[in-house]
Structures are given as structure tokens and as C-alpha cells.
């Protein structure tokens, strides 16, 4: 099942994979990290000027890490604005995704938070440092295989 944006991208021979639609009917596309910064500019030129939210999650235990971008087109007097959801998967060992700060400035803190919580480093981000955890923290808290240091639960003897 391909949505409009996916068909347009195929027409222009841009490599991507369509992940269908999410539960509300918003198109989801999967883009490779190498292509992401060029496709981001192309999407901005296409009209998606508002990046609503950027988040990251791990797809499976021990699997890939995903970085998700929700884009919308803000226009005057529009009833159902066009939206798209882009996912970029990165390997767990060395997760590096190009930063799209220079396209949509609203990912500034959000990419820092994804770096802080899941360890995905974004190339060309102007100040990629930890934002919510203290600067000296080791570990990536929101990963599913994260173990909280110095946290012992009281357990029964038997």
C-alpha cells in the first residue's frame, strides 16, 4: 500500500521504503541514514515546513534503534493538513544519523534528547551534549537493555 508521498518519491527515484500507514492513516516512510539529509531537504522543499516531533525508540531488544520524525505542512486555511512520519533505522553498535538541524531548527533539543536517552549520535548537530541527564552520566537510559546503576531491589530470601 503506497501513499501519495511514497509514489512521488518513487517517481523521482529516491530510495526509500514505505512502511504503510500508522493507525491514524499517516504515511510512514523508512529512509536509510545515508540518504536522510538529502531527502530531508527534498521534503522541506516539497512543503513540509513544520517538524512536529522527533523521537527515538528501540525497535526490538538487541535490534536496531529508530529515529522518528513527524512532519506537517502548515498552510493557511487548510482543514486536514498533510502529515508524514519518517523513520530512520540505525544499528545498535554505532548509531549515527545525520542531523537535520540545518533544515528544521526545531530538532535542536529533540535530537539532543534522543542522543541523551538512546545514544543515537547525530552528525553535524551544533551542540550535541546531554540535555536531561547530568553531563557525566554513563549509559543510555531509555534503551530497553539499560541497567540502572546502584539500584538494588529488596528481594525475599527464598
Amino acid at each position: 500500500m503506497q501513499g501519495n508521498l511514497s509514489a512521488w518519491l518513487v517517481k523521482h527515484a529516491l530510495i526509500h521504503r514505505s512502511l504503510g500507514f500508522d493507525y491514524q492513516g499517516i504515511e510512514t516512510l523508512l529512509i536509510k541514514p545515508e540518504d536522510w539529509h538529502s531527502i530531508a531537504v527534498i521534503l522541506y522543499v516539497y512543503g513540509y515546513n513544520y517538524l512536529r516531533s522527533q523521537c527515538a525508540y528501540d525497535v526490538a531488544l538487541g535490534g536496531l534503534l529508530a529515529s522518528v520524525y513527524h512532519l506537517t505542512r502548515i498552510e493557511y486555511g487548510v482543514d486536514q493538513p498533510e502529515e508524514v512520519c519518517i523513520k530512520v533505522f540505525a544499528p545498535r553498535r554505532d548509531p549515527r544519523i545525520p542531523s537535520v538541524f540545518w533544515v528544521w531548527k526545531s530538532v535542536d533539543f529533540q535530537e539532543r534528547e534522543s542522543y541523551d536517552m538512546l545514544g543515537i549520535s547525530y552528525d553535524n548537530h551544533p551542540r550535541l551534549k546531554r540535555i536531561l541527564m547530568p553531563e557525566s552520566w554513563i549509559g543510555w537510559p531509555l534503551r530497553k537493555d539499560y541497567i540502572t546503576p546502584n539500584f538494588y531491589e529488596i528481594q525475599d530470601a527464598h
Partner: protein
Amino acid sequence: MNQEKPMTVPSTRKDLMIVNMGPHHPSMHGVLRLIVTLDGEDVIDCEPILGYLHRGMEKIAENRTIIQYLPYVTRWDYLATMFTEAITVNAPEQLSNIQVPKRASYIRVIMLELSRIASHLLWLGPFMADIGAQTPFFYIFRERELIYDLFEAATGMRMMHNFFRIGGVAADLPHGWIDKCLDFCDYFLTGIAEYQKLITRNPIFLERVEGVGIIGGEEAINWGLSGPMLRASGIQWDLRKVDHYECYDEFDWEVQWQKEGDSLARYLVRISEMTESIKIIQQALEGIPGGPYENLEIRRFDRVKDTVWNEFDYRFISKKPSPTFELSKQELYARVEAPKGELGIFLIGDKGVFPWRYKIRPPGFINLQILPQLVKRMKLADIMTILGSIDIIMGEVDR
């Protein structure tokens, strides 16, 4: 031959001063640390440092069912608590296609708009206090206490109500609440008139606030701003009109916006939003229908297809949807128009009671990104004006 040196702005000192406006400060934004680089009185750069109130809300959400998580969500934005509850409950409702009864939707809208007024009031107080006017700070608490009383009568708690449930609200409105709420609306319109008289045409206020922290429309969209910050820059983007959620379409109200994009425009947008909210509340109170306040037929037998609600073969277990409300393995981005901006939840369900990923898109976090850009070339005293007009609250910035 001597070359002319280019004309530069004379700096008062050779070295720049770095000042720490530390996490403790007498303003109600919360624990926000700003490292400000100053040249005399001009601000060269400002770096916000967050994380002092980080409580791991997203990680906690991965281990709680929705009904267990509801008390946590009011602690994100603790001044507009109904919105956080609304979004927490809207996301699973949209994920599982649960219809909310009409009466419950009206009650939700009334509570949301009261919470919006409460949040804007508590924005106004510290904003004026940061500028230097201490009096509105006490006036707003007078009105906010009235809203607290209304909330306490309906939900049992003044601030951290645990009121919304999947499928409706927890309990119906008590007898006589609607009349009290109508009285509050009439009183509040006189209150707003008082604020207008005191603040809006005050020349000292206008000097402080006009032309400070200007954002253009295109830039505001690029920085991902939302809420009154976006509407004050000329973009008429209000999720209540765009998304048609709850039953906002049945009321007659307008999107409030201004064109200039400075702090005065943001102030005017918020004040007029309060008036619009009163209009919506009055219309909702006049037109509230009877009926159930919660959709109790949510828990249904699994894998039963093609049953329509209220038909003879509709099969359901008639119990409240807790604690084993299962989230299907889908993902969803739900959003509401919170008073501070667009509050969103990106929910990835796992076929079980706990979500796989629960990402909170806080409006304060995204709106705060523009602070370093806005304070460049401003005076030191303008930092507090700009920070105040952005309207952040650290509970949701840090989560």
C-alpha cells in the same frame, strides 16, 4: 598607507562576563539554569541547561498501565493538568477506536477550557512579577482559587485531579456545579476587564514589552513553535480547529492571533484566549446533554468482528476499563492544544498492557529552543521578559 578600521560597536570591556542565572530563582518557571554571556548590559549568548527536574516519566510509562499512569501525567504540566490527562487518555482511545459519549465530551471540554484559563492566569502572574509589577500576581491567585474550588467540587482534588478515564470521565458533575460555573464565567469577565485596565495600556508595561523578542512567522514554523507563540507571529494554527477533536466544532469561537510576534503580541493572544475560553465554556454549559459520562462498554471480547454498537449481537464485558486495558501493536501520534503549545504523545503499543514506547512531546521543551536566539543583542533585563513570554514550565520541559 593607513587603512580605516571598520566601524565596530565599542565594547565596554575587553573580556566578556559569564553570569549564571542558576536553577534557583524567584520565578515560577521552575528550575531552569541559564548561562548568560554578557558584554556590559548586552547579552551576547545564552545557554539554557535543563534536566534539574528530570524524573524519567517516559521510562516509567513503559512499565505502567494507562490507568496506573494517570496520576503521573498531571505532574508534567502541573498548572494545566487537565490537558496532560486528556492527552494520556486520548491516545489509547484513538488507538482502540473508543467512542466517548457526548456528555463526557462536553464535560471534558469544560474542564479543559477551565484549565486553560487557570494556566494562562498563572502565566500572567509570574510574567508581570518578572517585569516588576507584583500586584497581578495576587489578583490571579484570587481567580485561580475559584477555579480550584470548581475542580475540587467535581473531581475531588484542587490540582492533581485524576479525573479523565479512557472512554469518558471518572464521575459526573455534582448537582449545582453548572450554575456555579456560570457564575464564575460572569465574574471572570469582569476580572479580565480589570486586568486590561491595569496592564494593557500601561505605558511602563508597553515600554518593557513592545518590540522585545520578535519572531517572524516563517522562523517560528521552522523552530517548531506551537501555541500562543506561533499564533502571535501571524500563523493561525490552532489544533482545536485543525484537528477537530472532542466537540470543539459545535461551539462558535475564533482563533486568536496577532501579527507582530513580540512579547506584547504573545500577551495579547493569551488574554484574548482567556476570553474565548469563557465563551466556549458558556456555550458548553448551556448545551450540555444528558447521558452517560463514561463509555463502559470498552472491554469487549477479543477478535469479534463486525459488531456495531447497540446492535443485538454486540458483545461486551460491562466493566470499567482497568487495569487490563490492552494496547494493540500499533503506533499513533495524538495531540492536543495545551495552553503552552502542542502537547503530543507518540505511543507505540505492544500487544499487552504496557506501552512499548511512550514519547511525550512537550510544548515547553520545543518552545524553549528559541530562547538563545531571541535574547541575542537584547539587554539583560529583557531576558526575563522573553523567558516569561515563552511560557515554559519545567515539569514538562524535563519530564
